[in-house]
C-alpha cells in the first residue's frame, strides 16, 4: 500500500520535476498580473463595446436590440464616416514620409558630422512635448493674421495674401500632418538610430573590402538590418494616425467641414457630442478591425515574425 502511495506521489511529483513544466508555471505566474490588467482594460471593454454596437443605448434608457442598424447607417448613410476613414488613411500614408525623413536625419547624426549630438537632441526635443502644446504652437504658427509661417511666406514674396492653413479645405489636412510629423520625427529618429548602431561594423568592412559602393551598402546592409526598427516606426505611425485625437481637437476640431476629421474624432463627437454612444461603439469596432488588419499587413511586410522571441 505504502509502495502504491509512493508511486502515486512519485507520479504526481514527476510532472513538477520536468523543467518545461516549471518554466510554464513560472511564465504563467509572471504573466498573470499583466494578463489580468489586459483582460480588464482591453478585452472586457472591447467585448462590451461590441455588444453596445448592436444595441440602441443611451445613458438613462434601457438598451434595445439594434442588430446591424448602426453598421448600415455607417456604411450607407454616414458621409462623415467615409470622409474620416479617408483622412485616417491619408494620415497613415504620411507615415512613410516621416520615417524616410527620420532615416535621413538618423544617418546624418550617426555620421561624423560635427555637432551631431546637438542636432540629435534638437530633433528629439519635439517628441516629449505634450501634444496639446504642439497643437497650440502650430495653430499659432499657421495663423492667418499673426502666424510666423504666413509672415515668412509674405516677407520672401512667395504669397501675396496670407494662406488660411487651418481654415482651408485644401490646406487643413496637410497642415495638421506636418505638425504630426514634426512631433513624431524625433521618436522615429531615435528608434532608427538605435537600429543603425546595432548593425555590426564588420558587415560594412567586408562590403568595403569587396568593393561595394556606399549606396549598395545602404541598400544591401543598412536597410535590411533596419527592418525591425522601420517596422516599429511603421506600427507607431499607424497607431498615431488612429489616436491623433488631441492634435486634431486642438488644431481644427475636425474642420473645416470635416476636412480633418479622423475616425477617432468622429467616434468622440458621435459619443460625447451627439450622445450616440451605440453608434460610436460601432465606429470603434470598425476602427479596431482596420487597425488589426493594418498591423497584420505591417507585420507581414516586416517578415512576419516581428515581436517573436529569438531562440538560441
Amino acid at each position: 500500500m505504502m509502495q502504491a502511495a509512493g508511486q502515486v506521489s512519485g507520479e504526481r511529483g514527476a510532472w513538477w520535476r520536468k523543467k518545461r513544466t516549471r518554466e510554464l508555471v513560472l511564465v504563467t505566474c509572471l504573466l498573470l498580473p499583466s494578463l489580468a490588467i489586459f483582460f480588464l482594460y482591453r478585452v472586457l471593454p472591447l467585448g462590451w463595446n461590441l455588444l453596445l454596437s448592436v444595441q440602441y443605448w443611451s445613458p438613462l434608457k434601457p438598451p434595445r436590440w439594434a442588430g446591424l442598424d448602426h453598421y448600415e447607417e455607417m456604411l450607407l448613410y454616414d458621409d462623415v464616416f467615409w470622409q474620416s476613414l479617408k483622412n485616417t488613411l491619408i494620415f497613415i500614408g504620411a507615415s512613410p514620409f516621416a520615417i524616410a525623413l527620420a532615416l535621413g536625419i538618423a544617418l546624418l547624426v550617426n555620421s561624423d558630422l560635427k555637432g551631431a549630438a546637438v542636432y540629435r537632441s534638437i530633433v528629439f526635443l519635439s517628441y516629449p512635448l505634450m501634444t496639446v502644446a504642439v497643437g497650440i504652437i502650430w495653430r499659432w504658427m499657421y495663423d492667418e493674421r499673426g502666424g510666423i509661417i504666413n509672415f515668412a511666406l509674405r516677407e520672401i514674396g512667395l504669397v501675396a495674401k496670407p494662406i488660411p492653413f487651418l481654415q482651408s479645405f485644401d490646406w487643413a489636412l496637410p497642415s495638421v500632418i506636418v505638425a504630426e510629423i514634426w512631433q513624431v520625427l524625433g521618436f522615429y529618429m531615435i528608434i532608427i538610430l538605435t537600429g543603425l548602431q546595432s548593425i555590426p561594423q564588420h558587415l560594412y568592412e567586408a562590403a568595403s573590402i569587396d568593393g561595394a559602393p556606399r549606396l549598395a551598402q545602404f541598400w544591401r546592409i543598412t536597410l535590411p538590418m533596419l527592418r525591425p526598427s522601420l517596422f516599429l516606426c511603421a506600427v507607431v505611425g499607424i497607431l498615431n494616425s488612429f489616436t491623433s485625437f488631441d492634435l486634431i481637437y486642438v488644431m481644427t476640431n475636425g474642420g473645416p467641414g470635416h476636412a480633418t476629421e479622423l475616425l477617432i474624432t468622429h467616434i468622440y463627437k458621435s459619443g460625447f457630442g451627439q450622445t450616440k454612444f451605440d453608434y460610436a461603439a460601432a465606429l470603434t469596432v470598425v476602427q479596431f478591425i482596420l487597425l488589426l488588419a493594418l498591423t497584420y499587413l505591417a507585420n507581414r511586410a516586416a517578415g512576419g515574425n516581428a515581436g517573436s522571441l529569438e531562440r538560441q
Partner: protein
Amino acid sequence: MISRRALLKSGAGAAAATLAAPAIAQAPKKISFLTWNIIDQEPMIRGWIARFVKDRPGVEVEWLDKKGPEIPVFYQTQLVAGTPPDVINTQGALGLEYAAQGALLDLTPRLKAEASVRNRFNADYLSNWAYEGKNYMLPFYITKTLLFYNKPMFQKAGLSDPPQSFDAIIDAAQKMTSGEASGFLTLNFDWLYWPLYAMNGVDLLSTDLTKPTFNTPKGIEVTDRLAKATEAGTINKISWTGRWVEPNGAFAAGNVGMLHAHSPAYFFVKGQGKWVTPETLGVAHAPGGFATPNSHGLGISTASKNPDLAWDFLKFVTDEGAQELGVNRKLVTGNIAVDTKNLADLEKSDPLVYSILRTQLEHTDRMVGNWRLGNDSRVKEAFWPELQNALLGRKDAKTALADAERKVARELKRG
C-alpha cells in the same frame, strides 16, 4: 419570562438604534453644483455657498467647475455612474438634450406652485428651456446675438446707420471691403448665424419640428448670396471656419466692418482691440430684431437625492446670486428685477456695455435658432457641414441644401 435569545435581540437592537440615531441626525444633506467655465468667479461662488448653508445647518454644497468641452463628457459619465451633480449649468441647447434623455427634473410643477419664482424671469428666456411643454431649466445668465459695427469704417464708406435688412448688410459690407478689409463677420457655432436666414423668412424646420423647411428657392438664394459674398471677400471667410477666438480676434483687429455675435464677444473684442471705445464701436440689433440665444441655464438632475434642497439652491442663485453675478461680470441674468437695477447702474458707469446689454432684453420675442429639439446637436451636425460646403464654395447652394435636407430629415426621423 423573556428568553435569552429575545433578550439578546432586544439588547442588540437598542444598541444599534443608539449608535445609529446620532449618525442619522448628523448626516449632512449634500448637493453638488456643476458650473460651466466660470472658475474665475470662485470667490463669488464660494460666497454664495457660504451664505446658502449658513441658514441651513447640516447642509453642504460641493462646487465643481468644468470647461465647456469637458462638461458633456463629465456629465454623461456621471449619469452612467448614477452620480450626476445635483445642480447643473449648461449652455445653449444642451439642457434640452439632457431633458430629452430624462436626465433633468421637470421644474414645471415647482414653477407653477411658486409663481413668484416663475415671474422673476423674462418669460421668453425662460421658455428657451421648455421641452415638450415642460420647463427644465432656469436662466442663470443670458445672451443672444446682436450686430457690432466699426464706426470709423462705416464713416469711411459713407454709411451712417446700421443696416436694416439683409440686402443692406451685403451692400454695406461691399462698400467696406477693400484690400485686407472685409465688411462682415458672423460667429457660426450653435446656430448663431441663423438670424441671417430668419431675416429672409427662411426657417430650418416646420413648426411641429418634424420636417426640414430650409430647402426653398429663398433658402438657396440666401445661401448663394452668402457664398458669393464670401468668395468676393465681402464676408470674411472666418465667419464659416473659425470658432470663437478667430472671428472675434479678426473683428478686434479693426479691419472688419460688422460683427454678428453674442454679447460676451464684446469683452474679448475690447480686450484685444485698442480701437474699441464708445465712439468707435456701434451696437445695433440685426435687421428685424432677429437674434439667436446662447444662454446659460440651471437645472436639477433627476438622480438628485435632494431635489428640494437643489431647488432651494436654484432659487437662491437666480435671485441673490444673480444680483452679484450681473454686477461682477457685467451681464444680464434673465431676472427682471436684477437686470433692471444693474442696467440702470451701468447706464451711468459704462454706457457702451449698457447699450450692448440692453439689446439682450429687447425683441426677446424674436429669438430664432432655438428649436426645442431633444437632438439639436445631431440636427446641427447634419446641417452645418453641408451649409459650410456651400458657403466655402465646395458645393453649389442647391446641391448643398438638398444634401442637408436629406440628412436633417433622416435625423428628425431617428428622433
